[in-house]
């Protein structure tokens, strides 16, 4: 690789050809402020905050968008540069309507930080005193407040380039330019998959999730109500970031204590329901394989996972003809709700009408999922409220608790025991890994042939990963799988999901089982997770999850004693009558672009 000698602030350095000035500066610990730039997104070069001066050039250059091809001398804080940054910031602030103390992004807002960094202590230009645009809170998942928008287009680039959904667009010109939904329709009428990835990349409070914490507090404060919360693994690997801990610090025990002190009546582990999902989904896979291989039935293979509600909604919009490929299993969140309001209510002797189920999830789409009209198989709303990691952090702070200082405590039991398999659900490839561990054990009676049971071929952050596993020495019941090679694929992010599906449709991908997660990195990169996000942060969260998996006594779902108990006492067997009624669902073909 060709190295080019350049100077930044008179410091001589060498950089790889094609490195941008911004990257070069960062590699050398020189800070250049940015606003429209994001590590996950294509360069836009539009906010003009990162401008720098290059010797010999009249105009300032956007450092994020200037690849170094020749030796240059760059200055990052000359008078011209500082003035330009400050004026551009002043221009943005003049158009920004909103007050920090009532904003969801207070203390974690890039605009606010920039204003502080550049010593903004007055409005240079007359600034707007009335909101110009309506707030769109039509959906259960997302709220758009265009009045706080700074036109960085990070959301558009997220939705269009990263996710390839394309719900957001630029409308109008000049002063009236606006980030809009397609045809300016409310989000609820569009094919938005509610992944919330745009929220995670918005630098301001212009995009946030639809927050039900007030209702959750109300339920907690109501003595009639029995409030049960389940917590998913990804929030536990990330919520510490909201309290200043480094990414990848697992705080499961402290979180349990916090929730108990806040007044939740029971705290269960979503991993338990993840194990339940694997029991049902693994059985469904084996059933499909048997129907196809032994009975020659026209059963849809590959089977595709259905626990990511963002992915499910995308499939409903974009590939309605493939909905039969989706596993009929509900997601862990929803299975849990159905089990709590039936089995647990019975066991604990509580009227399910008085149970309020809350789910702490890394996800924005989970809010939509729990409000799907079909999710009432328990006779009640299976899950009443979905909270994101960020919202939960807010509630914890409101309760006056500082998470890192709390002692650790365990989940409540039963329904509080999850296996390592359920845990790894949080990372992309995790459902696949969990399924392979269980299915291999069911089919052969032996653990998976991987060191430490880590199914490494399906791990990692590549957009699409493929793997194969061949069954050998199968148990009598599964003789039809003797020597059969199971081909699997894993995709995360809608863009990659689309590619995998295209491979299936073209016949190029000869898979039996596919895991798809709507968010980059899987749930740990979900739209409800702490902001900021970056590849490094997602990697660190994944490591936290894998490390915790190693520490758990039970590593497969089949071996989870509380799961075994549930089947024995209540459900009977996987895919049995009651399972079908409570734990499985169906899908709704939707329009290509709307609802």
């Amino acid at each position, binding site marked *: 690789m060709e190295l080019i000698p350049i100077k930044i602030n008179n410091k001589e350095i060498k950089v790889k050809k094609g490195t941008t000035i911004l990257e070069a500066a960062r590699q050398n610990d020189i800070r250049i402020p940015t606003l429209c730039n994001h590590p996950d997104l294509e360069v836009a*070069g539009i906010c003009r905050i990162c401008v720098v001066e290059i010797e010999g050039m009249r105009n300032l250059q956007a450092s994020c968008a200037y690849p170094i091809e020749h030796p240059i001398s760059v200055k990052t804080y000359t008078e011209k540069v500082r003035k330009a940054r400050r004026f551009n910031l002043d221009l943005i602030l003049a158009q920004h309507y909103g007050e920090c103390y009532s904003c969801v992004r207070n203390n974690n807002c890039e605009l606010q930080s920039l204003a502080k960094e550049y010593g903004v202590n007055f409005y240079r230009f007359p600034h707007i005193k009335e909101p110009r645009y309506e707030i769109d809170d039509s959906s259960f998942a997302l709220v758009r407040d265009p009045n706080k928008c700074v036109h960085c287009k990070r959301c558009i680039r997220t939705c269009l380039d990263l996710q390839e959904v394309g719900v957001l667009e630029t409308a109008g010109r000049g002063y009236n330019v606006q980030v809009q939904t397609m045809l300016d329709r409310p989000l609820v009428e569009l094919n938005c998959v509610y992944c919330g990835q745009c929220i995670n990349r918005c630098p301001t409070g212009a995009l946030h999730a639809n927050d039900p914490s007030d209702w959750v507090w109300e339920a907690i404060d109501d003595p009639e109500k029995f409030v049960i919360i389940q917590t998913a693994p990804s929030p536990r690997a990330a919520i510490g970031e909201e309290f200043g801990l480094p990414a990848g610090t697992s705080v499961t025990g402290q979180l349990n204590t916090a929730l108990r002190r806040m007044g939740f009546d029971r705290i269960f582990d979503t991993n338990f329901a993840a194990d339940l999902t694997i029991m049902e989904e693994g059985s469904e896979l084996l059933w499909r394989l048997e129907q196809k291989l032994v009975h020659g039935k026209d059963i849809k293979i590959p089977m595709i996972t259905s626990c990511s509600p963002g992915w499910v909604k995308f499939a409903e919009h974009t590939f309605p003809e493939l909905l039969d490929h989706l596993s009929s299993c509900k997601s862990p969140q929803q299975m849990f709700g159905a089990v709590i309001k039936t089995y647990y209510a019975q066991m604990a002797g509580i009227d399910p009408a008085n149970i309020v189920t809350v789910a702490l999830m890394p996800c924005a789409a989970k809010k939509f999922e729990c409000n799907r009209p079909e999710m009432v198989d328990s006779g009640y709303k299976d899950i009443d409220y979905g909270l994101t990691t960020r919202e939960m952090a807010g509630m914890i702070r409101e309760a006056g608790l500082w998470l890192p200082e709390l002692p650790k405590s365990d989940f409540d039991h039963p329904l509080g025991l999850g296996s390592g398999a359920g845990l790894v659900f949080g990372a992309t490839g995790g459902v696949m890994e969990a399924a392979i561990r269980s299915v291999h054990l069911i089919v052969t009676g032996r653990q998976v042939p991987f060191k430490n049971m880590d199914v490494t071929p399906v791990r990692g952050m590549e957009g699409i990963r493929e793997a194969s596993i061949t069954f050998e020495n199968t148990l009598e019941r599964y003789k039809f799988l003797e020597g059969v090679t199971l081909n699997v694929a894993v995709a995360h992010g809608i863009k990659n999901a689309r590619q995998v599906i295209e491979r299936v449709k073209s016949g190029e991908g000869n898979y039996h089982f596919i895991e798809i997660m709507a968010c980059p990195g899987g749930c740990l990169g979900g739209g409800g997770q702490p902001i900021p996000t970056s590849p490094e942060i997602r990697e660190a969260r994944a490591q936290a999850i894998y490390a915790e998996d190693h520490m758990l006594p039970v590593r497969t779902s089949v071996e989870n004693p509380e799961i075994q108990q549930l089947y024995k006492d209540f459900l009977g067997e996987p895919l049995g009558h009651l399972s079908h009624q409570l734990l499985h669902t169906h899908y709704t073909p939707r329009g290509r672009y709307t609802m």
Partner: protein
Amino acid sequence: MKNSKKRILFGEYIVGSGLAAALKLKPKEVVNEVKKSELRGRGGAGFPTGLKWESAAVQKADQKFIICNADEGEPGTFKDRLLLMEHPGKILEGMAIAGYAIGAHHGIIYLRGEYVYLKKGIEERIDHMKATNLLGDKILGKRFNFDVEIRLGAGAYVCGEEFALIESLNGRRGEPRNKPPFPTEKGYLDKPTVVQNVETLCYVPYIIANGAEWFRTHGTMKSTGTKLFSISGDVENPGVYEVELGITVRELLEMVGAKDTKAVQVGGASGICVSEKDFDKPIAFEGLPPGGSIIVFNHSRKMLHVLENFMEFFVEESCGQCTPCREGNYRLLEGVRLLKKGDCTVAYLRDLMELARVMQISSKCGLGQMSPNPFISIIENFKDEILYS
């Protein structure tokens, strides 16, 4: 065309002679001849045409493109329309020569939507040139093929910017892209692309037919050749004029019969507005910017009103992508309105002048870099009228 001294474009020309001369040379020699002529783009930025061609010529690619920017959107400008109407053959010849020079076989005329009525005439010209072997396959018996198609623009001023134009051809929102890479490296369909304004292309056949030396006898040392201006406003004889670069404002005013002139906007809406004291300055790349239009104002005009019109135009036409242009033009317009009402403090006016300078150096494309020009020049040149009346 009243009173225009017939110069290059409106002078004698034998159809096909430029192209024939070009095909006798090696492509590299064509590029060199254009370089030697020191022809600079007539679209506003004034980039040396030869250098642009050279940078496209050295690219290795399976396809390259020549795009003729016929998206004339400057207020008061109609010279391209005239060329498209009366001289389409020269434009096409210029495109073919450019294509030969850089190794492109495909040309696109990006025609302003409002000019759709010109399409038929240009198409007929294309057909005729194909019939006479000046376009199409094996042009003039040489191993060179070149085809031209016409595409209609949606009519946004910013689509005059190279990349915005290319984005719009690529079927996207017409917005400028980051440079580098430049269009000559990655342009239309990500292939090396030369975008050239209508007028620039028209000079090309002359340069090749008559030689760079001949071309350099026109204009000044640093601004060779002639230039077309659409001259309008308070003048007796408005119209399109071809004049030598280097002509002074005063000479120009005389030529078109302007009397009692107070101000002249040179170089189009994004040019600069000069007062009497600058009338002896030359219009050339080293002097007052030679854009497409010249608008003359007599003493009955109010300069703040003039400025308000310009700024309204830019607020409308900014693509709205980058901060300084999107918000800055609006603030400048607002400032002009405050000045009109007498509500603008001197301190705030100073802030606005600084804003204008920040826009010039930090906007992403030419639009935002040039739109503050009328603001700065009118405030500076007509301070007395603006502040004290």
